Every structure is written in C-alpha cells, then in structure tokens.
C-alpha cells in the first residue's frame, strides 16, 4: 500500500516536473529518461538473461544514425523514418544475436564488443554516409499529432510517455512466463534444456527484444540531441549503460533507472567542472565493482530486510 502511494506520488512529481523546474533540469531529466530506457533494455540481457553485453550501443547508435539519415538526407517523414530505423535495428539485433549467441559468458561479451567496435569504426570511416568525425547535424524533432517537441517541456513529456510504455512492456516481459523461463535459462541452462525448453531460442528472443528497445532509446537520443556522432556507438556508450545496470542493480526493474539517473547526473555535473569523463567513468567502475558489487537497489533491499528482521 505504502509502495503504491509512494509510486503514485513519484509518478505525479515526474509529470509536473516541467512546471516547477527550469529548462536545464527538464532537459537533464529527458536525458535521464532516455538513458534509463537504454539501461533497462540492456538489463534484460545482463540481469535477467545472464548475458553480459558490451556492445549494446550498437542498437542505440544504429537506430539513431538510420533515423538521422532517413529523415535528414533522404527526406523521409519522421513517422516512416522512425518505423524503418527501429525495424532495421531489430533486424540487426536478430542477426547479431545469431552470431553472438554462439558463445556464452565471456565469449559472448567479447563478440558483442567486437561487433560494436566494428560498427563504431564504420561510422568513423564511411564518411560519405555518416560524415565521419563531424557527425550528422541539423536534424529536426518530430511533431507527433501536430504537437512540436521543440521546447524542453514538450520533449520531456514525450520522453516520459515513451519511458512509461517501455518500462511497463519490459516489466510485463520479465514477469511473464517467458520471463521466468529466461531467468531459468540464466541460472540453470542445462536443467531448462532437460525440461524441454530451448535455451538458445529464449536467449535469442530476449536479445532481439532488448535490441528493439535499444533502438527506441536511440530514436529518442537522436531527437533529443538533433545531432549524431560516432561516440554514440563507442565502447564508452555501451559501458555507461552497463555501469548504470550494475550500479543500480542488475536483474531488478528499478535498478537500471536509478543507475542511469546517477550516471547521467554524474556525467552532467562532472563534465561541468572537469573534462575527464572517461577517467571518472573508469574510477566509478572500479568503485562499484570493488565496493558495491550487487548494486544500489539490492543493497538497499538487503538493508531494509535486515531492519525488518531486527524489529521483529
């Protein structure tokens, strides 16, 4: 009961945020929402599927590039451009899944990393398509149902709606019976196979679903920035999402959101004072893995249950 009320208050606060806060904070919140969708989609693989990917930025970056190219260079409308780029990204996820899921564990991690690095290299080198290191600029935001998203508040609400839909659909995914079989495959792949499940197929479907949501976050990313650069495909970008998942708590729904919030806040505040974001990112990685290996949300939960145990 308390949980529901707290959640309702929190959701209400999120809704009215643009009325109370300035543009800077509203934009920051939009960025957090985008990062949260991205981290949630990675969490499907890392937390629920036990597949640690270091190449998730592929999906964000490819969807963003596809959308930028289709709407910017080829003059497609925003609707079809969005549809095609997300569909294309999902298809690419199916392909990448076929390759990467030949291995599990560290092999999977290395293959996803290699694949994403190849895409990153392509984005740099194929400068007649991607404009190389200069990136693609001069993009526009869509105007769904005739509502332009050009001011901070309207874009924030748009991102909030997408986030809510993504959150609910991913929550449904992991709490469904398919989600249970996914967790089964994560913990006991051989027993699941003996029970008649197909671990590979379960992993593959999850990989595609995660790729789809990665693509959706890529769309929001390019709409927000109105600009796309190869760094969106870089290991740093994948690592930020992985850090969000692990810092918040992998295998929980709230964890990646909390993690993404922390990482984005850190990125924004730190980069206002120092230019050394990569170093800070590395240090935070070391800190989280060495000090808080299970993440913030499970850590807090453990703390809460200990308190409950003490009061009983």
């Amino acid at each position: 009961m308390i949980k529901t009320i707290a959640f309702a208050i929190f959701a209400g606060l999120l809704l009215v945020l643009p009325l109370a806060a300035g543009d800077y904070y509203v934009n920051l919140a939009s960025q957090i929402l985008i990062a949260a969708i991205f981290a949630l989609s990675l969490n499907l693989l890392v937390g629920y599927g036990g597949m640690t990917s270091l190449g998730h930025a592929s999906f964000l970056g490819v969807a963003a590039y596809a959308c930028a190219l289709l709407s910017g260079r080829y003059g497609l409308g925003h609707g079809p451009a969005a549809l095609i780029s997300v569909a294309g990204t999902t298809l690419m996820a199916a392909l990448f899944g076929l390759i990467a899921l030949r291995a599990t564990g560290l092999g999977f991690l290395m293959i996803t990393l290699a694949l994403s690095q190849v895409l990153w290299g392509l984005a740099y080198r194929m400068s007649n398509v991607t404009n190389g290191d200069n990136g693609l600029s001069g993009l526009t935001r869509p105007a769904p149902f005739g509502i332009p998203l050009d001011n901070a508040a309207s874009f924030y609400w748009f991102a909030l709606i997408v986030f809510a839909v993504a959150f609910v659909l991913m929550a449904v995914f992991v709490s469904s019976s398919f989600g249970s079989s996914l967790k089964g495959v994560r913990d006991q792949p051989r027993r699941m196979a003996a029970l008649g499940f197909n671990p590979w197929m379960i992993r593959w479907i999850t990989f595609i679903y995660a790729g789809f949501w990665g693509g959706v976050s890529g769309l929001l990313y390019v709409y927000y920035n109105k600009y796309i650069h190869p760094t969106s495909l870089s290991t740093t970008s994948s690592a930020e999402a992985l850090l969000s998942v692990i810092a918040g708590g992998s295998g929980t729904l709230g964890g990646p959101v909390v993690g993404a919030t922390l990482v984005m806040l850190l990125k924004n505040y730190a980069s206002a004072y120092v230019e050394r974001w990569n170093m800070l990112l590395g240090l935070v990685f070391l800190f989280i893995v060495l000090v808080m290996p299970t993440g913030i949300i499970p850590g807090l939960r453990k703390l809460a249950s200990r308190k409950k145990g003490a009061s009983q």
Partner: protein
Amino acid sequence: MQFWIIQGLNSLSLGGLLFLLSSGFSLIFGLMRLANLTHGAFFMLGAYFGATALRSYEGLNLWVAALGAGLAVAALGGLFERLVLTRLKSNPLGQVLVTLGMSFIISDLCLVLWGGDPIPIPTPPSLSAPTRVFGFVFPTYRLVLVGCAIGAAAALYLLLERTRVGAMIRAGVDDMQMARAVGIPVTRLFTLVFCLGAGIAGAGGVLGGPILSAYPGLDGDMLPLALIVVILGGIGSLLGAFVGSFVIGFIYTFGTALFPELAYIILFLPMIVVIAFRPQGLFGRVGA
C-alpha cells in the same frame, strides 16, 4: 605486382604486431579465464613510454626502449593484477568490468599526459634504408618486425612447452583445481602470466611505433583487432593467436587498400564464418 608484394609485407608486419598484442591476451584468458580489456591500453601505454624515452634521450636504441617500456608496462600490469584483480577472484564479470574501467582510466591519463597530437617513433637509422630482394624494394623495418613476432612466438612456444614454468601454466589452463592440489602456486602464475602478457603488449606498442606512432585512440583501434584475432584463432591457444594474427593482418591490410570504406565489414566476415562453424575458434579446445 609491386602493390601486392608491398601490401603482402604490410599485412605480415601488421600480423606480427597483432600477434604481440593477442598472444598475451590469449595467454591471460587461457590461464585466468579473464578477458583483459586493458590490453589495448597496455599497448598504447608502451607506445607512449617508448616515444617519450626516445624523444628525451637522443640516440637511444629502439630495442632498448621497447625492452624498457615492456618492463614498465609489465610492472604496472603486475600491480594492477595484485592490487585489484586478485580481490575479484570469484567474480569473473567483475574482473572484466574492472579491466574495462582501467582501460578508460589509462587512455584518459595518456590524453592528459601526452596531449592529443600523435607522437612519432622514429625508425632506427640502421633499418631505415630499404632492402632489395629479387628486384623488389622492401621497407627493412617491416621485415625485421615480422622477424620479431616470429621470434616472440618461438620464445613463447619454448617457454610454454619446454620449461617447468610452462608446464605449470599448461597444467593451470587444463585443470586449475588439480594444479592447485598438486602444489602448483597458481596465484603466483597468474601474476606472472599477467605481467608477461602486459609486457609483450607494451613492447609491441614501441615496436609498432615506427608504423603506427603513439596517438590517443590507439588502444581503441588495436583492441578490437586483437579480440577478433582471438575469437578467430581460439581463446587461450598460442597457435590460434599466431594464425589468427596473420589472417587478420592480411584481411585488414588488403581490405583497407582495396575497399577503404568497407575494411571494417570485411573484418566481420572471417569472424562470422568461424563463429558459425567452429564457435570455439580455429584452434581453441573449449568454448569460452
């Protein structure tokens, strides 16, 4: 004809460099079950160390610089292994994440210390004159580099197959529990192998310097190539790293020369073929 021969030699020298990078990666993975994502950063760090040493001491020999940089990087690698990685023994994922974090820290530190401009590493004067073989002109340094890689491969092979330490390492790769049970100091071997791998990578950075120079982003350029080599050749296999390095050296060099924009896609292909038909890699015994 000249084009093919020169590109062939370039492929060989890139293959040699890749071997210096990927053999250590593969050894570390084989023994420690650790995907060391800091490896590209070790290579870059070696290149910067070498470039700085050669710049500040006029007339310093490239080989001495490579040896010194290799030792320095090996020492840093050993520190990292002792201070950080050993704490995460039971947490392989944590280890990978820490090496990733470390690679970010090192590459950013290099950017702070050495700035954004590439630092060239000069070719040793005695090797800068081209060599003529059968009327074809070869850059001598590249030939020597290939020789270095083959020498390193032979040395590593002898170390692993013909020495007591090598036998211990192989025992650890095959069955860690059993190796511990018969009294092999596996923990010390871990440090040794990590230092060795880091050191070869660091020395490789210097030796690659006359071709690649030291620049920010060198780690990000080299690490994926090493990953592809290791995936292709089989993780933990020295022979696999050797064959894989030269295969990738050829594919990447000719890909870049013939289809400059598609070189990265061409890199995909052998990897996909191998993963599809032999997920453990060409010479790997077990999947990762």
